[in-house]
């Protein structure tokens, strides 16, 4: 019964790992993987010799860290706010609305962003002009983009994450709140001394999952929204978009796969490192 699944894993997850060999080859499509000549570490030299690798690595980690901190932070606040709301209908409606962005693709998001930000008839620039601030050329100013992308990430995922937190909150026993009320704790105190501490394990798990993927940029997001706009590469180009362009744009299989191998190894090391740290300090929350 496990056969189709196992077959899938072998073919689509393990067989492509052979592709990592290309990182050490002077790859040509006609000769295939095994026919191509060995190339030592030249592909890596090419990647690490340029400034690109620092830029894409820092962008990947930096953007993911921003998404993680602000995304989860806001989701916690949202879930606590939703939990404090007792009007059933309002709560349900708000929950439905904030969950909605999770359901649309990055290309749809990219069009929304374009409608808001483009320089000729974007909504935000129109508002800025009517306030006599003057239009801002968002799509050619890289400095704004870490902020813009963080806002977009919050827009898309905060609702989703807040529902996970809300589920954790609803698992907290009512007796705790009751006895706190009897002891005279007000609602703010209940939030800080009961709700928040009991959310911590969920927060730790979500953080760990995100940290484990810190070397993987969100290709759909970045490539969907920024695309091939090279003006914005200084702050938005991540490992995944870089590899994609090396492969499909330049057709440079060797460099693309050396970057992919670098990413896979760094990803594995990070997750082992963090899981090790968590095992040491908070064994309950470890991933494996």
């Amino acid at each position, binding site marked *: *019964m*496990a056969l*189709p*699944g*196992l077959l899938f*894993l072998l073919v*689509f*997850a*393990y*067989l492509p*790992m052979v*592709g*990592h060999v*290309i990182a050490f080859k002077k790859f040509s499509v006609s000769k295939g993987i095994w026919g191509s000549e060995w190339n030592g570490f030249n592909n890596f030299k090419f990647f690490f010799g340029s400034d690109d690798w620092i830029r894409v690595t820092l962008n990947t980690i930096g953007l993911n860290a921003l998404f993680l901190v602000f995304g989860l932070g806001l989701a916690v606040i*949202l879930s*606590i*706010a939703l939990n*404090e*709301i007792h009007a059933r209908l309002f*709560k349900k409606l*708000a929950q*439905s609305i904030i*969950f*909605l962005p999770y*359901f*649309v693709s*990055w*290309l*749809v998001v990219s*069009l*929304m*962003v374009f*409608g*808001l930000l483009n320089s000729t*008839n*974007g909504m935000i*620039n*129109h508002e800025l002009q009517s306030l006599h601030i003057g239009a801002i050329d968002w799509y050619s100013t890289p400095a704004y983009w870490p902020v813009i992308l963080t806002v977009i990430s919050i*827009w898309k995922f905060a609702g989703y994450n807040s*529902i*996970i937190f809300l*589920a*954790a909150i609803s698992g907290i026993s009512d007796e705790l709140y009751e006895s706190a009320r009897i002891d*005279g704790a*007000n*609602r703010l105190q209940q*939030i800080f001394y009961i709700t928040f501490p009991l959310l911590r394990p969920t927060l730790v*798990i979500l953080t760990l999952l995100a940290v*484990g993927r810190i070397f993987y940029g969100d*290709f*759909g997001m970045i*490539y969907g929204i920024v695309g091939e706009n090279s003006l914005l590469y200084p702050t938005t180009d991540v490992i*995944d978009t870089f*590899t994609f362009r090396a492969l499909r744009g330049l057709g440079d*299989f060797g460099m*693309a*796969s050396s970057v992919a191998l670098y990413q*896979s190894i760094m*990803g*594995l090391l990070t997750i082992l490192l963090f899981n090790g740290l968590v095992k040491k300090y908070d064994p309950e929350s470890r991933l494996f």
Partner: protein
Amino acid sequence: MQRRSKTSIGDRLVNGSAYAIATLFALFCLIPFWMVIIGSFTDESSLRAEGFKLIPSKLSLYAYEFLLRGGQVYRSYLVTIETTVIGTLAAVLISAMFAYVLAHRKIKYKNALSFLTYFTMLFGSGLVGFYILVVNWLHLKDTLWALILPYLLNPFNTFVLVSFFRTVPYELNEAATVDGSGEWRTFFRIILPITTPVLATTTLLYALQYWNDWWLALLFVDDYTLHPLQIMIRQLISNMNAAAYIQGASTGQLQQIPAYGVQLATVCVTIGPIVLLYPFLQRYFVKGLTIGSVKG
């Protein structure tokens, strides 16, 4: 009564902030949707002159007329529906069968299988190997299979299923075996029917993934007759020759194209089914998330 009114100033503040935060964030989430939907019904010339607005000055259905008169939107819809339906059904079946084995008490090699599955989440195979696999080894470029096969088993969804299957009492299994039911029969007749909530969630997760995917099509599909809806949006954003693309080569006469309007209308047509089905589907997602957040 006395005590309640005494403590209520701080509590009322908490209450007020809770409503304020939820309302503001909900508006923040809603505005882009409203902008796109109302924009698709806005007259193209006023879109160009006044830009994107929340309350447009002149409404028009021309963008939809233009879009629906061409052939591409129907082709793309068909591609998206085909991949979503075939992919989701196959993925749910394969994942459920795999998860059933991983959760089975009597199977000795299940830990090895679990590890094999988990390891794929830790160590990526890399884009290049994947690309060569699909294009050069399996020869799936410009086929529907390239959009379906790579998503048939998602490790995360599988582990959600595993943790749910584990909650099914094993006695059910034993009773079925005693009554002479084989593993297949037990799985399809007993296990699947009582795990419908988690199956519904898994189905939705896979369906959403197939419906919203454009990465696979971007990598493997150049043939425009195989463009899913998502790629159609992308083509409309980046393609200079959008009119010919929408209308198809067969229609000779090219009209003035409402470029923005058509993009927005295509987006609305694409997210339409999701937004319409959303109220009915949402609770399954919430349920699935809740199961998924419990460590399996």
